């Protein structure tokens, strides 16, 4: 970064000074000249295959492809000479010799790069009269979401490069040579990949196409809206497009968000839950055990009656972390100032003390940390995250940026993941023993610099332990710990990507804090980036939807109860009214049986969501809410990036946006409550929260706006008691069950998407290859998984590199809810697995 050299060259007579090693293409673009490109794709390695980007360099007889030629000092480049222009036309004519001219039936027609380029530069007439090469007569399907037509291929290889360099699957390759070259999967077989559609998005022509969007519309028919992906906290900027009120695709565009063209399968294909027929359309009131459609006035009347009569101490509110910032802010205002209750939370999966401690340890109240900034560090330490499954796009970003920068990626996880292949070191620890690993690393560092690290907060807790002892507890070799400590010691800057496993297992938060403190004391430049799994989790915390702190992490008068506490109180019968927005507690709370029992005693239960979820079915009043595509607002992703979203549709039937509903409830109880104008609410947030002061996220703001530091710290949570969980030894249930989101699913919302269900329908269990060999099962085999109180049949996915004792069941399947295997207070469930014979 220092000591970079700059060179000066002339582009069309204009002097430009750029870094050494810059491509001529980038230099010319910086100078403001247009050079058409085909095979060139930002962030991918250059191949220079299409030769569209030819430029003339003084002193060189031949034209040079600018996308792979670096600049040299005192070059004189011409991008618009007659020779260059003739060459462009000739290259396009050449590309068209074998390109099937079936634009009228091609899905890409109208937004095709080749079309645009020929229109702009190309020959109006080709001289090629021979028969074109046809690879096949009919398009063939590569995956439930990808369809392929090789006749249109222009051999730019973008798909192959993106597949291996960004997605890391390398399932696409080149078959054949020269004009017969075809980019496809091995023997055109069905793809076993992330199904993220990156190959579709980068394809300049209609070679890779979306199967769900196939022959649905032309891009000019579509109405678009910029929004933010609702599935995880990576917060990908995306554009959803509808035709005749039906959302037909979501795309990510270059230049419209930090994610560029990157999106995962969920974001790119999970839009169709918006069109679901099962969406709730009217308020439903349970009368005599049966839901009856009622009017909004009636529903609001019932709410007013029940909530005003309730004891404020016995009123509970839970809002999903998928709502917008405005809605979350208004929700906490409703609960705190209208219901006068301190009891509110934004998630049902983890304890409020744990989350507060994590927030504090990960420095979330501070300013936002950009992922690209974090990736500048010498060492990237990813801990407690199932990043490839829960935050796929973060995974992509980590992969391609570290590949280019060659910095060290170290992964600590109890489960193997795709990113392992891009890492310098992958450490497998036992589930729930991440804390011991971190402590061991901290101890190792402490032993290197005992004087400098003396007095670091929390260091006393590990003083009496040994690296070996802690390593044994965590199930990690001492040498691995030592080398991890070595890499950290040798790096000038360290980024820690801390995932939600910290919250799921609760151990390790102190370790994270300790390690962070040690690294800071050692003078390392440290960035901690939380990796979260609900799209607006960070926003929910920022807005103070948490029992222990208020908006902007400010103090609250009275600390309330989190979901744990609420359910406990409800179970005791001390609940009068319960207001839940979008959080399917029943299917997400880790102990399903307890949650069901508690909610059935919860007094008057109001549930507000888009679908009739399991929790909705046991509630007393169901209010139809709106999806992200139907509301305007802002989202704050895991980095602290605030992005605005605009509505594309209007809510279905009589449904309303959650902001409107919250506002209506508020003003029905307390007249004068804030109105349902997102703009005004955001202004209120901006005025009240230091974090959001002066933030004006715009729709065209491609990178969003980073939040500022709130100035508040959550010091009091630093001393959270935390013990190493007892994994126990149980021979009848020999395997540790961990859970999380699957690559194709996020919570239960994505299960409403037909396309995503087409990608993964039945419940799966991920087991290690060693275990698979032992059991004699392979991918797709069916096994019976038994917990102490329940069991279910799963389809097997074998994962190499996972420890034998660890099995993973995604929490997304309604047929086999993972939370059935859990008991309250227990973070790692024990199960046994037997081969299920369907005969």
């Amino acid at each position: 970064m220092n000591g970079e050299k700059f060179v000066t060259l002339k582009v069309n007579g204009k002097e430009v000074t750029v870094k050494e090693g810059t491509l001529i293409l980038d230099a010319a673009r910086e100078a403001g000249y247009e050079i058409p490109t085909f095979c060139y794709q930002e962030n991918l390695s250059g191949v220079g295959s299409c030769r569209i980007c030819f430029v003339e360099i003084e002193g060189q007889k031949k034209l040079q492809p600018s996308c792979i030629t670096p600049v040299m000092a005192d070059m004189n480049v011409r991008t618009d000479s007659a020779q260059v222009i003739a060459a462009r036309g000739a290259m396009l004519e050449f590309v068209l010799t074998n390109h099937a001219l079936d634009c009228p039936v091609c899905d890409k027609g109208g937004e095709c790069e080749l079309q645009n380029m020929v229109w702009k530069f190309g020959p109006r007439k080709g001289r090629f009269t021979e028969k074109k090469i046809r690879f096949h007569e009919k398009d063939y399907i590569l995956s439930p979401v990808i369809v392929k037509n090789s006749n249109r291929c222009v051999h730019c290889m973008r798909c192959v490069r993106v597949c291996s360099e960004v997605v890391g699957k390398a399932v696409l390759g080149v078959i054949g040579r020269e004009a017969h070259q075809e980019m496809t999967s091995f023997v055109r077989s069905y793809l076993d990949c992330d199904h993220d559609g990156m190959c579709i998005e980068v394809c300049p022509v209609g070679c890779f196409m979306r199967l769900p969007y196939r022959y649905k519309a032309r891009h000019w028919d579509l109405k678009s809206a910029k929004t933010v992906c609702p599935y995880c906290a990576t917060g990908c900027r995306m554009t959803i497009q509808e035709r005749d009120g039906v959302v037909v695709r979501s795309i990510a565009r270059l230049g419209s968000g930090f994610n560029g063209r990157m999106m995962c399968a969920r974001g790119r294909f999970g839009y169709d839950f918006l069109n679901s027929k099962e969406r709730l359309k009217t308020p439903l009131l349970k009368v005599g055990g049966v839901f009856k459609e009622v009017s909004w006035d009636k529903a609001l009347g019932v709410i007013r009656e029940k909530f005003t009569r309730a004891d404020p101490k016995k009123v509970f509110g839970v809002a999903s972390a998928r709502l917008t910032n405005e809605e979350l802010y208004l929700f906490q205002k409703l609960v705190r100032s209208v219901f006068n209750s301190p009891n509110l939370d934004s998630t049902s999966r983890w304890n409020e003390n744990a989350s507060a401690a994590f927030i504090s340890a990960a420095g979330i109240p501070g300013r936002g940390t950009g992922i690209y900034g974090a990736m500048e560090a010498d060492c990237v330490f990813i801990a407690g995250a199932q990043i490839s499954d829960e935050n796929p796009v973060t995974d992509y970003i980590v992969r391609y940026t570290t590949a280019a920068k060659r910095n060290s990626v170290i992964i600590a996880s109890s489960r193997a993941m795709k990113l392992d292949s891009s890492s310098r070191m992958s450490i497998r620890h036992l589930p729930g023993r991440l804390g011991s690993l971190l402590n061991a690393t901290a101890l190792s560092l402490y032993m290197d610099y005992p004087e400098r690290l003396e007095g670091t907060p929390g260091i006393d807790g590990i003083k009496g332990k040994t690296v070996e002892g802690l390593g044994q507890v965590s199930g990690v070799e001492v040498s691995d710990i030592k080398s991890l400590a070595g890499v950290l010691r040798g790096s000038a800057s360290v980024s820690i990507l801390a995932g939600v496993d910290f919250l799921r297992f609760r151990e390790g938060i102190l370790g994270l804090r300790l390690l962070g403190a040690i690294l800071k004391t050692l003078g390392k430049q440290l960035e901690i980036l939380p990796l979260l799994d609900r799209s607006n989790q960070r926003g929910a915390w920022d807005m103070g939807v948490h029992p222990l702190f208020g908006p902007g992490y400010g103090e609250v008068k009275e600390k309330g109860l989190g979901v744990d506490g609420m359910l406990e109180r409800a179970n005791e019968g001390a609940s009068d009214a319960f207001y839940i927005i979008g959080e399917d507690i029943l299917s997400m709370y880790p102990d399903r049986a307890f949650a069901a029992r508690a909610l059935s005693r919860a007094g008057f239960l109001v549930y507000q969501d888009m679908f009739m979820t399991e929790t909705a079915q046991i509630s007393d009043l169901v209010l139809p809410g709106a999806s992200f595509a139907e509301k305007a607002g802002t989202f704050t992703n895991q980095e602290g990036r605030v992005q605005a979203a605009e509505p594309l549709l209007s809510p279905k039937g009589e449904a309303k946006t959650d902001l409107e509903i919250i506002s209506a409830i508020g003003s029905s109880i307390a007249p004068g409550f804030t109105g349902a104008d997102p703009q005004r609410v955001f202004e209120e947030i901006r005025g009240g929260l230091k974090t959001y002061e002066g933030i004006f996220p715009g729709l065209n703001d491609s990178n969003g706006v980073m939040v500022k530091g709130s100035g508040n710290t959550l010091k009091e949570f630093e001393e959270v008691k935390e013990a190493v969980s007892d994994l126990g030894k149980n021979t009848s249930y020999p395997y540790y069950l961990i859970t999380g989101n699957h690559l194709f699913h996020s919570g239960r919302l994505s299960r409403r998407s037909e396309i995503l269900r087409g990608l993964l329908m039945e419940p799966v269990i991920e087991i290690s290859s060693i275990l698979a060999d032992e059991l004699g099962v392979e991918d797709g085999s069916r096994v019976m998984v038994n917990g102490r109180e329940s069991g279910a049949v799963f389809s097997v996915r074998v994962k190499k590199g996972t420890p034998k004792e660890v099995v993973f069941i995604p929490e997304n399947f309604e047929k086999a809810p993972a939370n059935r295997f859990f008991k309250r207070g227990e973070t790692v469930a024990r199960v046994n697995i037997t081969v299920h014979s369907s005969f």
Partner: protein
Amino acid sequence: MSAGKYMEKKRECGIRDIFRRTFFIDFIKGLMVTLRYNLSKSVTVRYPDTEKWVPFPRYRGVHTLNRDEKGRELCVACELCARACPTKCITVVPMEDDTGRGIADRVAKVWKVDLVRCLFCGYCEDACPTFALRLGKDYERACTDVSCALLDREELLGPAEVPWSFDGGVVVGARFERGKGGIKVAADLSDEKSPWFERQ
């Protein structure tokens, strides 16, 4: 002639002129003209009772969707007609279907035209890459409710009353039919008659 001034025709006072005026010669000439027309054959096309005008091939009437010689739909639902339409009266929703046409399995699920908005400019015809869409020779669209102005794929794909092989530009025999569904003028293409401009 000076500008802006009305010059009265100079009065002639010759013998012929006096004769002309006295015996109303001009008037009688006029009467003879009208009498000649009165006795001549009428040029009226007896539409809709017995005759009907079939327009020339370049006439732009109601849309037709055509098939190839094997009877397969030519339309590939590319939506270019809808794009080209200045009044946005065409709606195309494509779908995939096995048509046996080879790679172009794209066909129209919905192909609707709203003739109330259509101005018969023919841009859609020009835009069509497969010659599937042509403006036909049908011009009878009067009915008592707007539904007959909304034509969909099934109606347009049906055999046209005047096939493309028939050149047009002639008057043919016709039959006026009044049925439950409304009125209709059925043409008998084999019964060609002279066009009106060749009559008298």
